[in-house]
């Protein structure tokens, strides 16, 4: 009887430890996310020095964050300087949505980026849009951090 009680308590301690460590990891992830928008640099590549190639979105959203707008302004400045470069904006969604809706969502995200670049003087002739929906995740994980990296619009040089 006593032994089983001890075992039970031991089990509780193990569970408590697991819960704590789970908290610890989720805290670490919030360091790279604001709300559920990715703010880290793990997957980011650069079109030129200081010009990040991608912006990130909240779940189900295509609204540009302050950080996204800053990234896109840098891209616009770089595109103005390199006037022969054309680009493809590749819009993506995370795996937590139906395939067809995500195709539409990826298109909406890429177009949000396109519209912003256009307001900073980049001609629509230089921009094409391509949605991959959830077909091309950059992080294959099934967790909120991976999903936040996958909700993105990536600016890719087309020529």
């Amino acid at each position, binding site marked *: 009887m006593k032994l089983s009680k001890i075992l039970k308590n031991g089990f509780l301690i193990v569970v408590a430890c697991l819960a704590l460590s789970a908290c610890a990891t989720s805290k670490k992830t919030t360091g790279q996310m604001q709300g559920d928008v990715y703010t880290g640099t793990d997957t980011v590549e650069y079109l030129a020095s200081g010009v990040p190639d991608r912006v990130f979105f909240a779940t189900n959203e295509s609204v540009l964050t302050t950080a996204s707008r800053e990234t896109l302004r840098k891209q616009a400045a770089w595109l103005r300087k390199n006037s022969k470069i054309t680009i493809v904006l590749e819009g993506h969604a995370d795996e937590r949505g*139906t*395939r*067809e809706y995500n*195709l539409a969502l990826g*298109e*909406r995200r890429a*177009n*949000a980026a396109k519209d912003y670049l256009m307001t900073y003087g980049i001609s629509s002739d230089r921009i094409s849009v391509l949605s991959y929906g959830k077909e091309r995740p950059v992080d*294959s994980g*099934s967790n909120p951090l991976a999903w936040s990296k996958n909700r993105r619009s990536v600016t890719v040089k087309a020529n």
Partner: protein
Amino acid sequence: MKNFLITLIIILIPLKSFGLIEVDITRGNLNPLPIAVSPLSIDEESRKNFENILEKKNIGSEISKIVENNLKVSGLFNPLNKDAFLQKPDIANLKPRFEDWNLIKAQALITGKVSYLEEKLRVEFRLWDVLAGKEMMALAFTTVPNNWRRVGHIITDKVYERLTGEKGYFDTRIIYVAEEGPKTQRVKKLAIMDQDGANNKFLTLGNELVLTPRFNPTSQMVTYLSYFRNLPRVYLLDIETGTQEVVGDFPGMTFAPRFSPDGKKIIMSFAKDGNSEIYTMDLENRIVEKITNHPSIDTSPSYSPDGKFISFNSDRSGYQQIYVMKSDGNNVKRISFGKGIYGTPVWSPRGDLIAFTKLHKGKFYIGVMRTDGSGERLLTENFYQEAPSWSPNGRVLIFYRETKTDSKGKGFSAKLWSIDLTGYNERQVPTPTDGSDPSWSSLLSN
């Protein structure tokens, strides 16, 4: 498709209407009907001939295995172990000794005979009511030997129809997307197979991403999305000839295609400047019509079987919900009002239900609701699953399910599953590779 045609040569005896056994398919069947599927008998000369042509030692028992497997997978029948059978196949087919079959608790019995006739496969079979001691039906087919699997499926369809009162769904095929490779660089091909997973065939090479294939009403054509030359467009594929053509070549992305119930139109989404709308294209004269007109995402359209209505997915309320409108785009009504978000509505072939995918509190569900949104019923819950497609008789749904990956990105899989409308009999559908986006054909023979 011509070579698949089976000539129904003789109906030996007209159907009688006093069969005592009946299978109720409207409830989850916890007591599947015990049925004995006797191997089809075959004479030695026919056996040798078929062994030469088909490389199957005994085509009679091979066909009966197909029937047995179909009946078992349906969840409504319990095929009994052949080791317990007392009567030999040839004698049973002439006149079963019902006491023997009763002894092993069989309520129904299938017997039959296979013969080689002028280079053709001739199959006759009989369905017996063991308790009543009566023959319920008898049919014979003649076809090319290569069609032997289809003969098994057609026999199952006939038995299913006789015992349940509803059309079967066994002589059918599934078109789906075969998947391989890492999650971040998945290679996807169109693939087609028999409903039981046999005769799998890849229809594209995997050079470009392909998604969401759907059959036309006669199951000879498929419409799907291809990223050929990195231009996501709706395509049309003739399964027999392999001819492919683009049908949605608009300056933007066309996706989410389906056929109209008469097969004359394709309904699809067209995305441009951040807005997805639903369009139809008449395949004969290529006239395009815009059906929806709203700044939100409108996608996943699916016609009612009479062609008068369209269900679709829209986020005009802020989140993905299911809507129904008249086929001209008027009278748009939201029908999903439960908790969570809803996608992929598909109208049932009977017209009374809409199957859907639902996401609520981090779980994905496949469910059905009436076409006015009432009577929502969730059939299955999982980490990720979507895209239900109806069996032609409207009793079974096929869909795909993905597994969670661990922190290292390992453990991902995508598989096809089926479930009864009752919520019972959930099963994985075998595929040689991973699979997604299944679409069920119509009955190939009638």
